[in-house]
């Protein structure tokens, strides 16, 4: 198990987190609060809770942890909670953060599912859901463009081409995810490593 006071990043950030590591109950309740506050994405609230409110991590440590969780498969914020919890309290900490993040909203969403199964055919509810889903799709599309901006600014042509290839094969051709990724990941890795080598030499 990791010591609770594992060494932080080499350079001390301006505001160092308080040395007191959170206990299991604190982890559970903190992630439950983060999760219940987060409409349409929990990441912002995770940063607010962990870095600003509790000062359990510096902004740099948070970014590093998030970068790790972003390249791993699976829901990013769930991975973040597990990595964060385990860093302070080992496996029990990971389980506490996982349960806090998923437990309360799972109850909420299950209640909504039950209501939908019972009243989903009511006309007014059908109209409301249709309207919400239109707006929700817009939110998703805006997130895509936000994430694309750095690639466009960098003129990362190879990255944009990989992006387009995945978009076409999944969105238009509706190919299975596994097949597309098993082809796209090696190609993208080869391009990234190749470009680095060219820059280095």
């Amino acid at each position, binding site marked *: 198990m990791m010591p609770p006071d594992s060494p932080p990043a080499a350079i001390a950030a301006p505001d160092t987190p308080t040395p007191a590591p959170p206990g299991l109950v604190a982890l559970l309740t903190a992630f439950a609060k983060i999760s219940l506050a987060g409409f349409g994405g929990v990441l912002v609230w995770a940063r607010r809770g962990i870095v600003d409110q509790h000062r359990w991590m510096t902004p740099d440590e948070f970014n590093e942890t998030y970068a790790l969780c972003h*390249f791993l498969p699976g829901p990013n914020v769930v991975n973040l909670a597990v990595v964060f919890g385990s860093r302070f309290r080992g496996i029990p900490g990971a389980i506490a953060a996982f349960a806090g993040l998923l437990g309360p909203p799972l109850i909420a969403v299950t209640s909504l599912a039950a209501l939908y199964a019972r009243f989903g055919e009511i006309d007014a509810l059908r109209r409301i859901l249709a309207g919400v889903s239109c707006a929700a799709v817009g939110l*998703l599309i805006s997130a895509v463009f936000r994430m694309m901006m750095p690639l466009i600014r960098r003129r990362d042509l190879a990255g944009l081409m990989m992006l387009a290839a995945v978009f076409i094969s999944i969105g238009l051709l509706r190919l299975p995810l596994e097949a597309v990724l098993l082809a796209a990941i090696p190609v993208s890795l080869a391009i990234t490593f190749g470009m680095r080598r060219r820059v280095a030499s």
Partner: protein
Amino acid sequence: MNPDPNPVWTLAWTFGLMSLFAVGGANAAIPEMHRIAVDVRHWMTDTQFADVFAISQMSPGPNVLIVALIGYSVAGVTGGLVATLAMCGPTAVLAYYVSRLLTRSSQSRWPAMIQMALVPLSIGLMGASGLILAQTSDRTWIAALVTALSAVLAFATRLNPFWLLLAGGCLGFAGVI
């Protein structure tokens, strides 16, 4: 279509396997969820899928909870629980081990490089999610306009997404869409 003798087991392995390929998080896996739930397994219709997406966006918590809604529609409360654990559990274990490995061998460069290689792919997947969901929810010109407007507002302003969802719901209730 043949009734599945053990739908809970099907949920478990379907989402467990999917999670390992969910590069870029839950929203990037939506096309695959749609393909499996609507086209392959016939768990729900196109419209129900759009509804479930809307409900998952309206409720608090991580976006991944859309799998709880899909699971619920297949096998009730157990289905929702199993789908959620299958989608989150295996990758959580993976994240735990990888993070321990990386803190031991610090200063390693390759996570950043792998991330750089994966980011364009996950954006492409999310774009495909947007397209597939737009095709299911935007059946009229006005609906497409609402989606476009919400996209522009969310992109250009720092408005809390909740207000946009609420506005969409009100327009829907008023019968505009």
